[in-house]
């Protein structure tokens, strides 16, 4: 045994309590980049037929992504489109001159997308045209320059342009998802906070630990994540800059430090602290570090969420005997009960237009995801599991992603708010939970 090995063995035996061994395992396996795979489980019935023809490539060029396939998968995931399988296409035109609109019309296509990928420097130029088949006319086109590694994101951008042209709503293919993964249990557990593209590709580990990580929350500019980590054997709130990896410990008071939520201007962080006895809601100014207490009640007040215009904070409170959603002004003050259906409503968050809330609700003992229309006071169920939780709106408000159990294992699921588009997002092994959909990204 070398001196170094002996020294290492000594260190492991004499210094490391079991908790630190758990942490070290985190170092070894935390960067394993298992990808979320997405399975569309419903929503194609009412979807619009569209043909996305494989893009032409200049001779000798072998792009590392199939741009048309990425666009087709993006559009299929929205639940609003049914892209035609490539094998059913009778022709594969790459320019408008080669298109026979009658053929595409007979195949039942409403829309047709053609495009080309050409070399440009060390990157590519990607052009596309979107056609209305019935009118035999072009309705959108663009040409985008990209680095070689940006080709997939370029395809997502094109998918979003097509989606917006045809639905009038911005697309979210070029956004990202933060989520927590867990492998193993107890002291041997590895928990990681990850961020991937909205289609599950390019997963990256933001932080990994042998102790619990919870409650990822995006800053409004999509550049930072707040989260709860137990790495010091107590829950504490960190804010981490994604580009640099730099992070700040922003709350580590006695008791719980949880439920971080950025204000719409990104300057303040609402959170739950129990330093004064009970879990109450506070707002921390991230610049001045000034902390203001918003609620003061003997029960549980937690899970604050800001309205998009910053005028209201909704939160969960059991002050009425069971957990329900309440709202209050962002500076604190009298709270108004928002949820009235059912005996358990929690973790509400606003839709991007501020007109509805998604929340966890208990129906006949089953925990499900609901969307509550604030103006009409109307609540609709979006999921049908038994332990569904952590709902998060997509930044265009069209979908909600949430955590659910599938065959006893924690996975993510998404569903269209207007129905349809349901899908499952899972990893080959381990649990996935607490999804948080990013804002629109520049």
């Amino acid at each position, binding site marked *: 045994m070398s001196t*170094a090995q002996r020294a*290492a063995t*000594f260190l*492991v035996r004499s*210094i*490391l309590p*079991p908790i*630190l*061994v758990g*942490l*070290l*395992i*985190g*170092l*070894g396996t*935390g960067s394993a980049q298992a990808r979320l795979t997405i399975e569309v489980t419903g929503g194609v019935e009412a979807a619009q037929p569209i043909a996305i023809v494989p893009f032409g490539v200049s001779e000798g060029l072998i792009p590392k992504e199939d741009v048309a396939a990425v666009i087709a998968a993006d559009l299929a995931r929205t639940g609003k489109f049914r892209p035609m399988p490539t094998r059913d296409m009778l022709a594969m035109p790459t320019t408008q001159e080669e298109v026979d609109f009658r053929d595409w019309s007979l195949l039942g296509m409403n829309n047709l997308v053609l495009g080309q990928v050409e070399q440009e420097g060390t*990157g590519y130029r990607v052009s596309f045209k979107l056609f209305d088949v019935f009118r035999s006319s072009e309705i959108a086109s663009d040409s985008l*320059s*990209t680095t070689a*590694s*940006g080709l997939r*994101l370029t395809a997502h*951008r094109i998918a979003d342009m097509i989606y917006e042209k045809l639905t009038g709503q911005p697309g979210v293919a070029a956004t*990202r998802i933060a989520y927590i993964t867990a492998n*193993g249990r107890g*002291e041997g557990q590895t928990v990681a906070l990850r*961020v991937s*593209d909205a289609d599950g590709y*390019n997963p990256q580990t933001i*932080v*990994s*630990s*042998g*102790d*619990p990580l*919870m*409650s990822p929350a995006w800053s409004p500019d999509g550049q930072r994540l707040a989260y709860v*980590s137990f*790495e*010091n054997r107590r829950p504490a709130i*960190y804010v981490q800059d994604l*580009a*640099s*990896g730099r992070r700040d410990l922003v709350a580590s008071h006695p008791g*719980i430090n*949880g*439920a971080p939520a950025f204000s719409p201007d990104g300057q303040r962080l609402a959170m*739950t602290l*129990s330093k004064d*006895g009970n*879990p109450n809601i506070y707002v921390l100014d991230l610049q001045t570090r000034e902390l203001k207490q918003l609620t003061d009640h003997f029960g549980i007040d*937690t899970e604050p969420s800001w309205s998009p215009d910053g005028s209201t904070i909704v939160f*969960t409170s059991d002050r009425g005997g069971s*957990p329900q959603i309440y709202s209050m002004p962002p500076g604190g003050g009298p709270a108004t009960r928002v949820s009235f259906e059912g005996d358990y409503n*929690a*973790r509400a968050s606003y839709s991007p237009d501020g007109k509805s809330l998604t929340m966890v609700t208990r129906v006949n003992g089953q925990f499900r995801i609901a969307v509550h229309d604030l103006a009409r006071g109307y609540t609709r169920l979006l999921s049908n599991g*038994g*332990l569904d*939780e*952590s709902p998060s709106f997509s930044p265009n408000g069209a979908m909600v992603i949430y955590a659910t159990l599938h065959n006893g294992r924690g996975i993510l699921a998404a569903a269209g708010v207007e129905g349809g588009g349901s899908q499952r997002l899972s990893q080959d092994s381990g649990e996935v939970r607490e999804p948080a959909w990013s804002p629109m990204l520049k």
Partner: protein
Amino acid sequence: MIPSHPRFPTPLSAGRPAPAASLAAPTVLLALLGLLALAGCSTAPESEAPQPQIDARPLSQDTAPRSVEVRPTYRGPWEDPSNPLYNRIVYFDYDSSAIKPEYIGVMRNHAAYLGANSGTRVTLDGNTDERGTREYNLALGDQRADAVRKFMVAEGARPDQIATLSYGEERPTNPGHNESAWSQNRRVVIQY
């Protein structure tokens, strides 16, 4: 030009020496050095984020825990199965932090022991079952631990002998998704 979404730097491993990080940082640094030595690697870890990737494969998930020899040492009567203090768990009803009468004896025993041993300290770990939302459960675990703390202080323990910590639903003792598992997970553990 469209670049890809920015690649983030190598992930932080929580507890690694990072700015604003941890009380445990010096120990972790030592542990990292030990790891590096085991991995046959001579590079010293840098203390600034972003961190280089550290190859820790020789300490695999299978072998690492076994390499730690835990020598049993008698730390107190709570480790003796024939002693009433051995019973250190208080269970709760669903979505409740109300103390149930059958656990008053458990808490009294520990409060009396703390009252008689002023140098002894405990942490009360509050836990919940998986039903309901994670942050609500973190708060509920906190309230359960606080309810046990208040009772033990009233029964003779000093406030500074008792710390509380909520894990919410993050540390189930039974990972099942049924009432039997849930009832085991709704607990406060008195940790010496």
